């Protein structure tokens, strides 16, 4: 019997690692993977709550999150490819023209 809070703490840790990766990594693809990590952390918390409240809607929601993540990954990687073609770099610090 594991308290619910442990699952939530684990989820929080995964999410925090995702954000950290977003903040400190320079490769675009790695940043994308950090986003996926964040989404996974959230999925875990959904399933944990579903188990606690005995409501399957939490798991259905995980489906939808996965679908969205898949779509987002596809389009995002396509964008990265397009950016790579024009800018010849995968360093996010060099994709900074949209500024004031």
């Amino acid at each position, binding site marked *: 019997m594991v308290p619910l809070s442990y699952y939530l703490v684990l989820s929080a840790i995964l999410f925090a690692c995702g*954000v950290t990766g*977003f*903040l*400190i990594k320079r490769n675009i693809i790695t940043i994308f993977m950090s986003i996926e990590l964040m989404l996974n952390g959230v999925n875990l918390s959904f399933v944990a709550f579903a188990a606690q409240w005995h409501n399957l809607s939490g798991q259905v929601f995980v489906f939808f999150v996965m679908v969205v993540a898949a779509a987002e990954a596809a389009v995002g990687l396509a964008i990265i490819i397009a950016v790579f073609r024009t800018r010849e770099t995968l360093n*996010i610090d060099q*994709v*900074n023209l*949209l*500024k*004031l």
Partner: protein
Amino acid sequence: MTENLHLWILPLLPLTGAAINGLFGKRFSRSMVASVGLTFAGAAFVWALWVASRFSSLPRLSLPYVVTVTTWLRSGSFQADYAFALDQLSLVMLLVVTGVGFLIHIYSVGYMWEEGGFYRFFSYLNLFMFFMLTLVLGSNYLVMFVGWEGVGLASYLLIGFYFTRDSAASAGKKAFIVNRIGDFGFLIALFLMIQHFGTLDFGKVFNATQALPAETSGAGFLTAIALLLMLGACGKSAQIPLYVWLPDAMEGPTPVSALIHAATMVTAGVYMVARSHIIFEHAPSAMIVVAIIGILTAFFAATIGIAQTDIKKVLAYSTVSQLGYMFLACGVGAFSAGIFHLMTHAFFKGLLFLAAGSVIHAIGGEQDMRKMGGLWKKIPWTWITMLIATCAIAGIPGLSGFFSKDEILWRAYQANWAYWFVGVFTAFLTSFYMFRLMFLTFAGEYRGAAGAPHGHEEHAGHGTHLGREEILPAQAPAPHGHGHGSGGIHESSWVMLGPLVVLALLSIAGGWIGANRFEHFLEPATGTVGALAAEPSTGTAEPATLPAAPAEEHGNERLMTGISVAAGLLGLGLAYLLYSAKPGLPDRIADALHALYTAVANKYWVDEMYATLFVKPLVGISTFVFWRGVDQTLIDGTLNGGAAGARELSDEVRHMESGNLRSYAGWIAIGAACVLAYMIWVGTR
């Protein structure tokens, strides 16, 4: 059965003329513009005549005859209507304004024919008639004030008619601003009337005043009202201390000087004082002030007039002086005598100005009398009519001026011999400078330069700029904008001479009605009412009983008349001596009395004094305190500072959008942390 006189048509006619000429005149031909202007002015005159003819059929006790057009203001218990009233006083003014105005309209057609802005001139002239008629026919102080302000506006527009000239524009401004000071007094008087009487209607105000005792000891609010009204009259009728605009107003075309600054607008002050006679009679100290201002101005202006070299300036100061006589009459209680002199003055002064315009026109724009002379053979009609007018103003027996001026001097003598003495001396001076003008202009040899062809510019008013009147050495003649192909001095056309002749006839015959019959006619409107009488002012009032026995009075009166006629003839003789018989004498006298002469020739430096005392400090305060200090530093500074501050703030904040994705993530993270903290804090409370 009182018939409907449709008084409201009277102001409306010239207003229509002004509107038509103003809106469409630019596209009309000159004859069309002239016809429109003359038609409406003439129609007003014809209607006035018709009103006059029907006047006698109105029952006496129903006067004043009031036509209410509409309720104008209503605020609480105060109400002012847009209404016109007719009684004897306004009838006299009405005929003078429309009659003399119409004659001057005719004259202007000829005089202004070659000037630019022809349609504008007639539009303004008709506009002036509209406002003057509103002033004269108004049945309460508010409508009168509308007319009062309006004639000031028309005066400004017409003085500055040649607006491309700096001096003309400045003169227009000066007239308007000085008038404004007077209007301020008028307004405060109106406010006091509203405060104490709750109305501005003539009938109600005068009835209410009638019920109050006269303020013989000390000054109450009636004295205040009277003095403030007098301040307004000083502005409009060019008395001390607000007369300074009238000489500068000669920058305008001569018909304007004739109509506005001789015959009608400047007399509005006298009319107003006569209309408010009940208020003045209940405030004896104010009456004394009025009389003193009148006689002082008359004397003061006459002394300046004897040293002027511009023909129009002499006439301007003469106007100021004659207006002083009118106020003197009002100040001693002879209101009808003042109005009588107003009427005759309109005739002969209007004629003098128009004739002067004819002279100027004849010699091609020259206004300096030192360059005239010997014109009587060349422009005989002008000379004869001007001579008639000069005799009238000098008080030569039989002409109109004699009757009115003598009545004033006689009544002044009855009040205080000092008034009479200064008045007679002023009459001497008046005769002197007017005949000086006649001799310099018409007698002797021609000293000018007309005869050479001249150009088309509008005339520059030499020596008429604000400030000192220097005695300049021989100047080049200022071309007047009449491009006569051939030079040469010629008589004016009959368009201009006709009105001169008519006015000359009026100057001769205008006084024959006699002062006593005139006074009797005006009795219901201007009669002196006893201080404690309680009867309404619309009834016939008893004239004040004379203190002495009639027979002795008659003898005294003849003696005074004789003395004033002698003064007039003395002036003529002196002028003949100095300017015809011994031409070198004036210069020697001027050299001998050098200091006095310089003071007089420089108009006692009044304009300069006003400039130093009032104008320069005000301009200084406006520039340094209000403009630099408040407007630029405070208001603009705050606005610009605010804008600059916003710009600097945004300049700092814009660095947040650096294009760098990771910094965005950083901001998001910290924002999310704040929101989380807040929600946890709220949730766990």
